[in-house]
C-alpha cells in the first residue's frame, strides 16, 4: 500500500514524504539542548572577546561567526529532525568511504607544524575530517548492528568487522596525530559494540591490549611524552618549562580561582591573555572561573539530562538502527564532555577535544547540531506503551 502510493507521488510529494512524521519530536531533549546552546554561546562570547580583541582586532570576531554557524546548525537540526533516519542505511558505507578519503587527504596535504588535523574549506575556513569520521563510524556501526544483530555475539560477526573499521579510522587519526580524536572514536565504537551485543570479554581484552599498547607507546616510544609529563607531574614541569605546562596550569588557575560562586559572568581574569585560546578546548576553565562550582555543576547536570534524554529516545526507538544511531550520537556528546572537562581539570593529559555547544568552531557546531537533529528524528518515531 505504501509502495503503490509512492509510485503515484509527484517529486515534491516524494520529497515531502521524507519529512513526514506522525508525531512531534522529543521536546525535553530540544529544550535542554537549546538551553545548553544558549549558555554555550554566551560563555563562548565571554571567553573569547579578549582574545578576539587582541588577536583579531575585533571583540566580536568569534561570537559573530559562532552565531551564524549556530543558526545554520539549528536549521540543519530542524531539517534533519524531520528526515527519515532510515535513509542513513544507504549512506553508511559511502559516508565511511568519504571520511577515510578525507582522513588520508589530511595526512597528505602539507601542514605547518607537523600536525594535520584540519582540512581547508572555503567560507568555513576549515574542518576536522575526524569529526566526519566520528559520525561515519556511528552511522556505520548502527547499520552493521541492525543488520547483524543475531551474529553480534560471535567473534566473526560481532567483533572483527567492527574492529577493522576502528583500526582504519583510529590508525589514520593516530597518524595525524590526534590522540583525543582517536580516543573518542575508540570509546564511541566500543560503547556501540557493547550495546550492540559484542561479547564484553573481547572488548575487555581489547581494552587491556590497547592500554598495553598505549603504555608501551608512552614509555618506550615516547609518544606525546610532553603532555604525559605535564599530566603526571604538573608543578615540576611548570617550574622547569612553563611553556610546556602553561595551558594546563593556566586552566587550573582559572578553575581554582572560580571557587564556589565564581568571579561573576564576564569577570574572568585568566581569559586576559593568560589562558591561551580560551574560546576553544579550554573554554570550560573560564566557565568555571566566572560561574564557580555552582555554574559548572549546573552545566554538567544539563549535559547529564541531555544524555539521559538521548538514551531515553534511543530506548524508545522503533528499531535497532534508530536505537543505535541515537545511542551513538548521544554517547558521543557524553564522552566528549567527559573527556573535555577531564582534560581541562587535568584528570587526563592535555589533548585537543572540544566541549560540545561551548567551544568555538563553526563546522563542528553545525555537525553537532545536525546530529542532534538525527536524534530528534529518531524521537519522532518513538514507540510508546500507549501506541
Amino acid at each position, binding site marked *: 500500500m505504501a509502495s503503490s502510493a509512492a509510485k503515484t507521488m509527484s517529486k515534491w510529494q516524494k520529497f515531502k514524504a521524507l519529512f513526514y512524521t506522525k508525531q512531534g519530536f522529543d521536546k525535553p531533549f530540544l529544550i535542554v539542548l537549546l538551553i545548553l546552546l544558549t549558555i554555550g554561546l554566551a560563555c563562548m562570547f565571554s571567553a573569547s572577546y579578549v582574545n578576539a580583541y587582541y588577536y583579531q582586532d575585533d571583540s566580536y570576531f568569534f561570537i559573530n561567526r559562532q552565531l551564524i554557524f549556530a543558526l545554520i546548525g539549528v536549521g540543519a537540526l530542524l531539517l534533519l529532525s524531520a528526515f527519515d533516519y532510515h535513509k542513513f542505511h544507504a549512506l553508511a558505507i559511502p559516508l565511511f568511504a568519504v571520511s577515510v578519503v578525507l582522513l588520508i587527504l589530511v595526512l597528505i596535504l602539507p601542514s605547518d607544524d607537523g600536525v594535520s588535523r584540519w582540512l581547508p574549506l572555503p567560507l568555513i575556513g576549515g574542518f576536522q575530517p575526524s569529526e566526519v569520521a566520528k559520525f561515519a563510524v556511528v552511522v556505520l556501526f548502527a547499520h552493521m548492528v541492525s543488520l547483524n544483530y543475531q551474529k553480534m555475539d560471535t567473534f566473526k560477526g560481532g567483533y572483527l568487522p567492527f574492529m577493522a573499521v576502528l583500526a582504519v579510522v583510529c590508525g589514520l587519526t593516530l597518524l595525524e596525530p590526534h590522540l583525543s580524536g582517536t580516543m573518542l572514536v575508540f570509546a564511541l565504537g566500543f560503547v556501540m559494540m*557493547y*550495546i550492540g551485543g559484542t561479547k564484553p570479554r573481547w572488548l575487555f581484552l581489547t581494552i587491556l591490549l590497547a592500554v598495553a599498547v598505549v603504555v608501551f607507546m608512552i614509555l618506550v616510544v615516547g609518544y606525546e611524552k610532553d603532555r604525559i609529563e605535564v599530566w603526571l607531574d604538573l608543578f615540576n614541569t611548570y617550574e622547569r618549562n612553563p611553556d610546556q605546562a602553561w595551558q594546563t596550569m593556566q586552566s*587550573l588557575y582559572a578553575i581554582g580561582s572560580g571557587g564556589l560562586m565564581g568571579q561573576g559572568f564576564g569577570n574572568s*581574569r585568566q581569559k586576559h591573555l593568560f589562558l591561551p585560546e580560551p574560546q576553544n578546548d579550554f573554554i570550560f576553565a573560564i566557565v*568555571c572561573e566566572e560561574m564557580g562550582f555552582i555554574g559548572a555543576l549546573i552545566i*554538567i547536570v544539563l549535559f547529564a539530562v541531555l544524555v539521559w534524554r538521548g538514551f531515553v529516545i534511543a530506548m524508545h526507538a*522503533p528499531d535497532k538502527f534508530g536505537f543505535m544511531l541515537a545511542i551513538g550520537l548521544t554517547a558521543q556528546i557524553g564522552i566528549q564532555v*567527559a573527556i573535555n572537562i577531564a582534560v581541562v581539570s587535568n*584528570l587526563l593529559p592535555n589533548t585537543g577535544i572540544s566541549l560540545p555547544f561551548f567551544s568555538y568552531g563553526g563546522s563542528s557546531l553545525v555537525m553537532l547540531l545536525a546530529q542532534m537533529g538525527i536524534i530528534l528524528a529518531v524521537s519522532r518515531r518513538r*514507540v510508546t506503551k500507549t501506541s
Partner: protein
Amino acid sequence: MATDPKRQSKKTASAAAKNRPTRQMWTRAIFVLLGIVLLAFGALLVQLVMLQIVQTDDWQRRATEQQLSDNVISPHRGTIYDANMEVLAERMQVWTVIMDPNNIDEEVNREKLADELSSLLGVDRDKLYRQACKTDSMYEVVKSKIERPLAEELIAWVEQNELYGVFRLTTDYKRTYPYGSLLSSVLGFTGAENTGLYGLEAEYNELLEGEAGRIVTAQNGWGNDMPNLLSYEKTVDAEDGHSLVLSIDQTIQHFAEKHLEEAVANTGATNRAVAIVQDVNTGAILAMATKGDFDPNDPFTITDPNELTALAELAGTEEEDAAFEAAQIKQWTNKAVTEFYEPGSVFKMFTTAMALEEGIITENSTFTCVGTQKVADYNIDCHVSPMSHGTQVLGEAISNSCNPAFIQIGTAVGRDLFYEYYTGFGFTEKTDIDMLGEFDVSEGFYHSRDELNPVELATSSMGQTFKVTPLQMITAVSAIANGGQLLQPYVVQQVLDGDGNVVTNTPVTVKRQVISEDTASRVARLLADAVNSGGGRNAYVAGYRVAGKTGTSEKTEDRTETGSNNVVASFSGFAPADDPQVAILVMIDEPQCANRYGGTIAAPVAKKILEETLPYLGVEPQYTAEEMADLSRNTPPVEGKTIAEAEAAIHAAGLTVRVEGSGNTVIKQVPEAGQSIPAEGRVVLYTDQSSLQSQTTTVPDFTGYSVSGASEVAAYYDLNIQLSGTNLEGGGALAASQSIAPGTEVPCGTIVRVEFLYEDTIE
C-alpha cells in the same frame, strides 16, 4: 489479497517488535548511561570540588600572583647634613647604560662602535666588542651608574651615530658626597645597593634607607593593565629615608682636617692622626677628623701615600691582596673612636683634678724633682733626666710636665681614690657616642683597682701603662672644661623625617658630676697657665686663653729599626679658659720627624684649629695689653715710592694694601706714616689726583661694638681703627666713643680712634 487486517497488523507488529532493540541492548544502554552520567561526570564533579572548593585558596593565590604586577618603589635615601644644613651626603640620579646588540644593524661597524664607546665610557674595549657581537642578546649592561654629563655625552654620541634603539639608559641612584673626603671617617660610605657599609651610613642605615613602597596593579597575560572593569591598583607609598643633621660643622671640620693633614705630611706620621673638636657644654662633636682617610665617593681606592708606597713594594707578591684589604679597612676605620693610645702627660690634668678635688694638694703645694723617683723597687725617670726640675709649685709642675711631681701626687691620692676618679672620668667605659665601632677598653687596657699597686699607680698618674680612645680623652677634658660634668658625646643632632620634620633631637646627656665646678675652674686656670708659659705654649692663641696639656707617650710594645720607640704625640685642651666653649684634641700617631714631642707637633695643630674655629663660633677674643701691643703695627712711610716698593714695605710691616688710581708712584698714603693700626689693617695708596678725590668713605657709628666687632666694621668701611681704653684685658668692653664723628666723609684708610669701656660703665 484478502488478508485479515487484524492478523496482518499483528504480523507487522511482531515484525516491528522483532526489529526493536533487544532487552540486552536496553540493559547495556542503561549501564553505559549510568557509566557516563554517574562515573565519568561524577569523577569530574569530584575533581571540580577539589579544585574549586578544597584547594580554591591556593589556586586563587597562585592566579593572583601572576595577575598582579608588583613593582617596588624604592625610597629616597635620607640626606646627611652638617649643623648648618650643608649637604654632606645625598643621593644623586645616575644612569645605567644598557645595550641591545640584537638591534644593531648589520652594516654598523662593531669594531668602530667598541672603539669609540669604550673610550667614551671608560670600559674595557674587548669586552664591549664581545657584548656588541652577541646578536642573540637584547640586554647587555655596558656601564652602571654614570653621571649626568657622561650620560649627555653618550646621548649625543648615539644621535651622531644614529644608533637609535640600541642603547637605553635606566635610572638609578647613587650616594654622593659633595665635600669628597671631608668627614669621611665619620660618614662612612654606601655599597653598590646604596646600603650603608661603614660609619654613620651603616649605623643609621635603617633610618636613612626608608621603606620601599609597592604599586600593585592588575595586569593581563602580556603585562598590560587590565580593562577598567577588572582594574585594580593598590599603592603603598615608599617611605623616604630619614635625614640626619649632624652636630658637626663642616667649616670647623674643614679647619681641623686642613691643619691635621698638613701635620701628618710634616711629621711623616705613619699611623695616622686624629683631631676632635667638641662643644664642652653639650658634648656635641663639632669636628672629628682622621688623616689619612678616604673619599667616600670612591671608598675602595687607597689614598694614603704611606700605604700606597707600602703596597707598591708588595706588588706582585702573595701578600699584596691581603695588604690591600688591610689598607682599605685601615683607611675606613675611624681612629677617633675605634683605636686607642696611651695618653701620656695629657692625663696629668686628671691627676691634678682628683688631687685638688680631694684637697690632697693646693696650687701652693710644692713638689721636688731630683730627676728620678723611686717607687717600690723601681726608679722612674723624669723626662728631663739626668737633669731635674728641682722644687716646683703645682702650676710649675704642670708646665714642666714633671713626672716625679705627678708620681708624688698620684701616690698621695692613693689606689682607691685614683681608681674612683679614673672611672669617674669615663676611662673604663665606652662614651656611648652614636657611632659604630667604638673601642671597648674594659678588656684589660687599664689597671683595675686591684692591679693598681704602687708602680702601676705611679705610672698611671703620669698617663702611662693604660690606653684610652681619643674620644674618651676629649670627653673627659670637656668634663674639666664644663665644670665637672661627664657628658655623653654625640654626632647626630637631629633626625628629620622625609618631609623635613624633626623626629628626634639629641638632648644633652649628663652621665655624672665628676669633680666640682670650683675644682674644674682651678684646673682650667692651671692648664691655661701651662699653655701661656709651659709645655703647651705652642697652642697659645692671642685673644683666647687656651687651657690644655701636651703629651708624648712611647709605644713600648713596638720598636723601630733604629731601636727607638715610636711615640704618640698629643695635645688636649679647651678654650677660652675662663668661659670654656670648645675642647680640642690632636693626636699624631707615630710621627717620624726629629722632634716628636706633643708640645712641638700636636699643640701647634690645636692652635691653628682653634685660631680659626673660635672666631668662627663667634667667641669674642679678649686681648691682654701685651697682646694688644703685639697686634698693633706702625705704618711705614711710602709716599713718593713706586707702587711695587710701597706694597713690599707695607706687607713687610704686617699690613695690607689697596691701590687707587692709575699712577705709578704713591702721591698720598692713608693712614700717614708712623701711625699705629691693628695688624692686617689696610693702607690705601693714592697714585693720582682724581683717585684722591673720589675715594672717600663715610665714618660709621662704632658705639656699642666689641673690639672685634668694631674692627670688622672698620674694615667694611675701608677705615683703620686704633683701639684705646683703660683695661681691655678682662674682655667684655664695648666701644664708647670715636675720634671722628659718624657720618663724616673721609679718605679711605683714615684712622679712627675708638675708645672702649666696660659695659657697666657705659650704661
